[in-house]
């Protein structure tokens, strides 16, 4: 029991990498972290800023977050993903905050596993859970000068 807990903790410490930053984020960093010799598959999801919403032209996005809690919820995303996909070796989740221009990445998730199905499904699961649970807030700023705080669909 105690050994299992220590193992889980070490798993988290060494194999989960979560990060929130205002500088641009890149899949090179997440993929470099998750790439291991005993893994044959890496799956990456990149969320980028779209130039339109309901026919309105989007100029840029602004993200803010409840940082301490966002870190803790991103770690929870890793943990839930591991619980569901036991084969996963490493997970990296980077989220950008502040201004994000069109075409730039706001979130990048990579996971690795020996075989492809688990990595692909784990990354899919992780982005879904992140959107449901991590306290990050996005404001779309439109070309016409209007703004709108967004809400992730259920």
């Amino acid at each position, binding site marked *: 029991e105690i050994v299992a807990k220590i193992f889980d903790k070490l798993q988290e410490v060494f194999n989960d990498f979560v990060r929130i930053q205002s500088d641009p984020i890149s899949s090179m960093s997440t993929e470099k972290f998750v790439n291991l010799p005993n893994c044959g598959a890496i799956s990456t999801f990149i969320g980028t800023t779209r130039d339109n919403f309901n026919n309105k032209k989007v100029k840029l996005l602004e993200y*803010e977050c*409840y940082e301490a809690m966002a870190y803790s919820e991103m770690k929870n995303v890793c943990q839930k993903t591991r619980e569901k996909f036991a084969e996963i070796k490493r997970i990296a989740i980077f989220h950008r905050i502040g201004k994000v221009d069109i075409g730039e990445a706001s979130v990048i998730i990579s996971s690795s596993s020996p075989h492809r199905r688990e990595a692909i499904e784990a990354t899919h699961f992780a982005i879904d859970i992140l959107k449901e649970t*991590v306290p990050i807030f996005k404001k779309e700023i439109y070309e016409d000068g209007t703004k709108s705080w967004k809400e*992730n669909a259920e």
Partner: protein
Amino acid sequence: MTFDVTILLFGPVREIAGVDRIRLNVRPQMTSAEIIQQIVKKHPSLKQISSNCVLAVGQQYRHRDENLYLDTSTEIALIPPISGG
């Protein structure tokens, strides 16, 4: 006995209130719903959005009817709809 705690505000809640934190007088034991009610009483502009908000206490989401045990150092946040990703 009552005392003051700090409530952190984010995103649209912060914009509407015009501040990123407010002080609130609370009792040591309250439900999440009661605290949200108190916040709205003090900042009526938050009335409309508050029904879509959830409270985080100690950086954990809390159900509306959950009993919370508070002290002056408890970290509380009023969380509007999230939109990360």
